[in-house]
């Protein structure tokens, strides 16, 4: 089956777009709610323009930069680095996993962010309605153009994050798997943001954030497991002096000494992987699991679970003492 839809790329694009569109819709909503009078209309339009300018410029830079990076990696990978392919995939999966782990929790705290934004937006309003006599300076400029900067920086950050994630998670995929997944991910993310803007409330937004974060951490666990798997299989390829994948999914394609389980079917590596590829993307499924890949997966889950539990108890305690 020709892979035309890379599940992990879809999720990553969805998440990045979701975060961006939430921020944009929050800002737009706020402006719409605050600048209601006719007198405010010019400022309203000006600030709305800033927001969209920030978004579009951020997106443009990300697309150009992202395409350049991904293109370069694909080209280099196929020509020079093919023998080190597994090392590349291992390293980038590891980086992607690390980034998601660190940043993932932030998404859950979006509701907390609105206080910070409120202050920023108020300052922006002040700066924009001030006359020529008001003091200049970077801080002032920052406040004046906050409506541009906030979405711009957010899009840049999210976008570059997304590019790195995609490289890490999607390096082994054929180019055909990307367009549809990217388009769908961005589309769905934008749609959710729009729906939130129109009629969402805090409660269902949080549910969405929680669900998408759960998936992201499962993907990160899978990425760590796959990273270890890639390094182990690189060592195996070196040991047998060739490409283990050439022997298919049968005996010889894996190191019996490291094997925890092996089934001859259901390989996410062969023929694009099919549904097993999807399981591989989301859960890190391997038809040939090693001690390394299984143990790293479990340690990650335990570690992250413990970290969230710790954050939960700490905040609960902090709340109680208020």
């Amino acid at each position: 089956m020709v892979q035309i839809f890379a599940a992990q790329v879809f999720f990553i694009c969805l998440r990045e777009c979701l975060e961006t569109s939430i921020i944009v819709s929050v800002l737009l909503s706020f402006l719409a709610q605050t600048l209601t009078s006719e007198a405010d209309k010019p400022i309203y339009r000006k600030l709305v323009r800033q927001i969209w300018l920030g978004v579009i410029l951020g997106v443009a830079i990300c697309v150009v930069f992202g395409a350049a990076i991904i293109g370069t990696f694909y080209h280099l990978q196929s020509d020079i680095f093919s023998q080190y392919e597994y090392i590349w995939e291992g390293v980038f999966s590891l980086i992607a996993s690390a980034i998601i782990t660190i940043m993932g929790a932030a998404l859950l705290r979006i509701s907390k962010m609105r206080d910070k934004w409120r202050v920023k937006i108020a300052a922006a309003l002040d700066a924009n309605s001030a006359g020529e006599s008001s003091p200049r300076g970077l801080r002032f400029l920052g406040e004046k153009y906050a409506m541009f900067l906030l979405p711009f920086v957010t899009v840049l950050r999210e976008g570059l994050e997304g590019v790195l994630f995609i490289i890490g998670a999607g390096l082994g995929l054929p180019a055909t798997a990307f367009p549809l997944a990217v388009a769908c991910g961005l589309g769905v993310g934008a749609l959710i943001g729009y729906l939130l803007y129109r009629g969402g409330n805090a409660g269902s937004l949080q549910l969405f954030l929680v669900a998408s974060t759960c998936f992201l951490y499962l993907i990160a666990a899978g990425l760590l497991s796959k990273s270890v798997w890639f390094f182990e299989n690189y060592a195996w390829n070196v040991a047998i002096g060739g490409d283990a994948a050439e022997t298919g999914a049968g005996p010889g394609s894996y190191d019996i000494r490291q094997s925890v389980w092996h089934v001859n079917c259901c390989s996410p590596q062969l023929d694009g992987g099919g549904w097993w590829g999807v399981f591989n993307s989301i859960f890190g499924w391997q038809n040939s699991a090693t001690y390394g890949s299984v143990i790293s997966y479990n340690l990650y889950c335990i570690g992250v679970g413990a970290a969230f539990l710790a954050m939960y108890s700490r905040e609960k305690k902090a709340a109680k003492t208020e």
Partner: protein
Amino acid sequence: MLHALWLLLAFLHGAACTKTTYLEFNVTWVNRNPDGLHERPVMGINGQWPIPALHVTKGERVVIAVSNHLGNETTSLHWHGLYMNGTSYMDGPPGIAQCEIPPGESFVYDFKIDQPGTYWFHSHTRGQYPDGLRAPLIVNDPENPSKEEVDGEIVLSFSDWYHDLMRPLLASFVSVTNPTGAEPVPKSALINDSQNVTVAIQPGKTYLIRMVNMAAFASMYVWFQGHSMRVVEVDGIYTEPTEASMLYLTAGQRYSVLITVDPSGGTNIPFVASMDEELFDDIPDDLNSNVTGWLVLDNAKELPTPSNVDTFEALDDMSLRPLDGSAALDKVDRTITLDMKMDNLGDGANYAFFNNNTYVEPTVPTLYTVMSSGQYSDNPIVYGSHTNSFVLHGNETVEIILNNNDDGKHPFHLHGHAFQVIARSEEDAGSYSEGNTLSTPAVPLKRDTVLVQPNGYAVLRFRSDNPGVWLFHCHLEWHVASGLIATFIEAPLELQKTATIPPDHYDLCARNKPPVPTLGNAAGNVDDLLDLNGEPAPPQPLPAGFTTKGIIALVISILNGLIMVGMIAWYGMLQSPATEPGAGDEDGGPEGENQPLLAGPGPGT
């Protein structure tokens, strides 16, 4: 001591009757560099390497005392192609007909040769002969049908050559890191264990050229530039003279051809042996598969470089008819089907199988089991579950159907007999079935080593008129190591009556380290011959799917994943504005889940 006594007895007996040749073979390591690329230790006999061809005459008795002075390896010698009538215990393979000859020990081979032709002898210790312990064995025939024509005889041996010793190569071949069973690729090809060999000839003469392929692995295409060959012998069997411009010799095979040199002389004649690269798993850039020699008419003239050959078109040996016109054996009394394949076992290494069994040497050499198992000797069970043993009755027509379920070429060799090749299929013909028989030739090819095509079959027939224990195996030494061996126990009850195994053969077993038992079944069990507990066995098969370990690992991983997700969700919902302490107060808006993200009267107003 006993060995000296035996030699004395043999000498006396020999002096009384047949012409006897007495030889001492001291096997030692010597250093040689036959291809000029790499000096390495090789196994020489009496300090010589290349080991000179052994020439005997038909009807002679040969007594060879082999002393092992290698120091670090056991050894043995097998006489490839000799039927060993009545002397199966001199055939050579350890674990079958004798025990290994340990370092510092010796063993006397004593047998009569009643068959003319081109043969060779080589170590039959696992994986040993490619380290150099092999040489041609020529049995001269005063009644040779071509003798009128022949002005001179030339012996040419061909071989592949490795730069590494066999022991480390074997270890890396049968190993978890070689799961595809890729055979090591040789470094060069040799003629007469050398290169750029020259043989002096004279114009107008006809030469009988005896050719032996002593390779571990590579088959050879052989041709003499500008000269046609007349094949007159194949594996010791005289044939109707058959023209050929190129021959294909698998490891173990022999041909004798007549070449007549132009009376007007002319240029020196190059001849080439080229290794069949189709056998090689990969072909390194620096591999030279060709080796050239010259038939030299005039020393003053140059040795021309052989011209390139576009295609390899060798004689199909199925077209050779034995000179004695033996008709095809048609009433088959016993059919043995051997399905061969290569597969991996639980240690990750690649093994070779006959009928899903890979060969493992038994505790007691098979011949000694015959001699010590009384009336059970015709029950194949006593010979072991992992020896691919078949008991044949005497004087029957036996048919072997060999189905090659591997995509490689394999040469199969039978000890103790030459067989008729009733059929040999094309590549990819699949298994033999009654329907797809190619028509049986009236007078079929007869030889002792036959090529079977990838994913094809061969049908062989012979008469079981030679009581003994005879191996049937692939003659690629790598596959001998990975177990592609079957054992034929021919007329065991008869053998018990007629075979007199010299006592020092049994003593040799006692002097092995550790000592090898000589009584009992394949497990060494003397009391209950049908009880094979403790017999040597191959590694377990690979686990078929999820083992207990795998299922537990998977379940635990899933649980941990779910727990992690649970923690995230729990924490995430804590962040929700409804549960966030003090969050909604400042706005005075609605509490709980319906609180909008931003303060104010709601979007759009």
